[in-house]
C-alpha cells in the first residue's frame, strides 16, 4: 500500500515534470512528435530506474561510511554518464531492434536533469532501496505520461492556427502549464490514502 502511495504521488500528484520541474528540456525538445515522445519516455524509464539502482548503494554503502557525501553530485553524474554509455553499447550488441528505437535518445539522457534529480531526491528523502526503485520507476512513468500527452496535443497544433510568436516552445510551455493545472485536481489524494491506511 505505501508503494501504491509513492506511485500515485510520483505519477499524478507530484509529477516530476509538472510539479517538480525536472526534465523540462526534453519535455519541450522531444514532444513535437508522438513517436519521439514514446521513445524518449521509454529510454528515460529504463535509465532512470537503472541509475537509481546504482547510485543508491554507492551513497549508502560507500559515501556515508567514509564521510564522502560531498562527492555525491560529481560521482552521480559520472555514474549516470557511464551507465548511459554502457546501456548504449549493450543494446547495440544484444537487442539491436530496441537500440534502433531508443538509441538516439540515450546520449540526450545524460543531461536530462530528471535522472540526476531523482537519484538525489531518493537520497534526500531518505527512501529505502525498494522505495527508491519504486519512486524512480514511477517518476519516469509520470514523465513519460506527461510527455506523451503533450505530444498528442502538439501534434494537433500543427493544423491549428497558432499565432506566430507563440509557435514552438512558447505554446509548448503554455500547454505544459495547462497540463500542470489539470493535474492539480489530484492534490490531497495521497493524504487521504495515507489516512485510510492508518485506520
Amino acid at each position, binding site marked *: 500500500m505505501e508503494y501504491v502511495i509513492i506511485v500515485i504521488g510520483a505519477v499524478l500528484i507530484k509529477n516530476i515534470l509538472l510539479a517538480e520541474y525536472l526534465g523540462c528540456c526534453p519535455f519541450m525538445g522531444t514532444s513535437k512528435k508522438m513517436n519521439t515522445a514514446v521513445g524518449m519516455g521509454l529510454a528515460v524509464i529504463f535509465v532512470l530506474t537503472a541509475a537509481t539502482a546504482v547510485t543508491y548503494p554507492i551513497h549508502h554503502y560507500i559515501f556515508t561510511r567514509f564521510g564522502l557525501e*560531498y*562527492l555525491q553530485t*560529481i560521482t552521480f553524474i559520472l555514474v549516470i554518464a557511464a551507465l548511459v554509455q554502457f546501456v548504449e553499447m549493450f543494446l547495440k550488441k544484444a537487442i539491436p531492434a530496441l537500440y534502433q528505437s531508443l538509441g538516439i535518445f540515450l546520449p540526450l539522457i545524460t543531461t536530462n536533469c530528471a535522472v540526476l534529480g531523482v537519484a538525489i531526491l531518493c537520497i534526500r*528523502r*531518505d527512501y529505502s532501496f525498494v522505495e527508491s526503485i519504486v519512486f524512480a520507476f514511477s517518476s519516469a512513468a509520470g514523465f513519460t505520461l506527461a510527455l506523451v500527452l503533450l505530444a498528442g496535443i502538439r501534434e494537433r497544433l500543427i493544423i491549428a492556427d497558432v499565432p506566430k510568436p507563440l509557435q514552438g516552445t512558447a505554446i509548448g510551455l503554455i500547454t505544459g502549464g495547462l497540463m500542470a493545472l489539470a493535474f492539480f485536481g489530484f492534490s490531497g489524494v495521497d*493524504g487521504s490514502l*495515507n*489516512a485510510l491506511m*492508518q*485506520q
Partner: protein
Amino acid sequence: MKEIIQMIVVLSLISGVCALALSGFRAATAERIEDQVLQNVQGPKVKLVLDKAENDIINDRKTISVNGEDVLLFVGKKGTETWAIAYESKGGGFGGDIKVMVGYDIGNDTLTGIQVISHKETPGIGSKIAEDQFTKSFKGLTTSTRFKTKPEGGDVDAISGATYSARGVCEAIRNSVEIYPQVKKQMQAQ
C-alpha cells in the same frame, strides 16, 4: 596506443586535480557548514525548547559519549549557572523516523519542552505532532511520566487519526528519558 594512453592520463589528471581541489575546499568549509546546519535546522528548535536560556545555545554545545554513542548536547544557562540541557532522539513513526529534541530542567528533572526536528508523517494528519498544540502538552512533565499514549496505558493524549505518529513521538521521548540520568551525571561531572 599513444592516443589511448593520452586519454587515460589526461582524464585521470583532471579527475585527480578536481578531487584534490574539492577535498581541500571541503576541509576549509566543513566546520562552517556544520555550524550553519545547526544554526538553521536545529537551532531554532533548540531555542524554543530552552526558551529561558540566556546564553548562545548553539555555541555552547558539547559532545558527550553515552553507552558508546555520541550525543550532541545543548546547554541552556541562566546567568552563569547551567539551567537546562537538550538533546535529540528518535522514534519510529508512521512514515519513518521521527526526530525529537527534548529539553530537561536539570534542577527538578522536568521537561522544559519538546520540538519535532524532522518527520515524514502524512501532511495534515500525522504532521499534527509538530504543531504547538501537541508539543506544548509535554512541557513541565516530570521524567517519571509514563510517555505512552492513553490507549497504550500511558499518560499522553493521542491525536485522533494520527495514533502511530503520536506513538512515535512518545517512543522518541522514552528513548531520551532512558539515557537522561547518565547524561545528567556526565554533565555535572564536567
